């Protein structure tokens, strides 16, 4: 994980023009995060929400991510949209391997994130068992707002050069809900 303090960008005033100092990595991340070419690997009902997010009402183009590329070699982000069965897993793995660096992966929806309710012989229990994932978007399916949250989270992570997996937070959770959930978890995990 990159050290955030090293990525600090400073603007120094000087004369009429002024200049900016930054890390090359940070500059690159800043440039990359607003032109993400996507590979939609849509396999199930979540695909509908993905189309909805991409179409004008929610307009993914506002984030510089309007260009779907149906060749993995030309894309930066792999959207895994929907259930991945064990039989599809080699295909997904191969698509991921064909993408050129730098590449990011978004697990769209509960099935892609953890297998969802498909707890059986047929389904991959979360695509991170096969390929590394940057952002998980929970939901069955997630609303377009959650998808945009996921995309913005990914952009934020690219800007920070951070590759640790993160999950889109439930924005409807009230203040203090995280602590309450943690407490509940502690109680329930007691033998």
């Amino acid at each position, binding site marked *: 994980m990159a050290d955030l303090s090293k990525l600090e960008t400073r603007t120094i005033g000087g004369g009429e023009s002024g200049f900016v100092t930054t890390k090359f990595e940070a500059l690159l991340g800043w440039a990359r995060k607003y032109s993400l070419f996507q590979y939609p690997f849509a396999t199930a009902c979540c695909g509908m929400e993905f189309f909805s997010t991409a179409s004008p009402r929610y307009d993914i183009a506002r984030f510089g991510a309007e260009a779907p590329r149906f060749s993995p070699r030309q894309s930066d982000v792999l959207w895994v949209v929907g259930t991945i069965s064990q039989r599809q897993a080699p295909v997904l793995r191969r698509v991921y391997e064909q993408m050129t660096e730098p590449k990011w992966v978004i697990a769209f929806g509960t099935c892609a994130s953890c297998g969802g309710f498909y707890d059986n012989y047929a389904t991959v*229990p979360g695509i991170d068992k096969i390929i590394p994932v940057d952002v998980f978007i929970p939901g069955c399916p997630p609303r377009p707002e959650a998808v945009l949250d996921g995309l913005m989270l990914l952009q934020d992570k690219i800007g920070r050069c951070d590759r640790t997996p993160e999950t889109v937070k439930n924005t409807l959770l009230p203040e203090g809900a995280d602590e309450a959930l943690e407490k509940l978890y502690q109680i329930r995990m007691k033998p």
Partner: protein
Amino acid sequence: MSKLILERLKAQFGADVLEVSSFRGDDVALVKPARWVDVARFVHDDPRCACTYFVDLSAVDLCDPRFQDLDMDDRFEVYVIAYSVEHKHRVRIKTRVSGDEPRLASVIPVWSGANWMEREVFDMYGVHFEGHPDQRRILTYDEFKGHPLRKDYPANRAQPLVEYREGTFNKLGPFLQDEGMPLNRSAAPDERN
């Protein structure tokens, strides 16, 4: 109305039709596996049945391994549903087979639409259809061992084609650690059978 089919079946096959029942418009006949294709042919060809439209073919594993032996008699119940467009009636014909590699004659000569359905039953239950032109797995992959819808197939056994990555896959974010399914993300090995 389609009790007519059951009556005709009983008249035609006598004791080979083991059991008939009707419930709210569902008419079911249980026949001996030896007469499986004959019955299908009769239901298809007989002008008063004329069930030319093939609806479905599938199976049920009737064994409950908690109480019964896996080599119980009549373990797998294979059924076919056929519909008559002409007479607008429907019938379900069932038969029962048993053993580790149960065998049954294919009804593809009667309804060619049965091809993929029989492949599915073979894939999920391991029932072999004699005379099937292409008896391969259809939903799972060739590397798959066993038949997943048999009651003795462990509910938590997956057979991944791609080796899983190393590392921990605990739940992230809003999920609690013990929420969801045991196969998916639990840190502890699954105890369920």
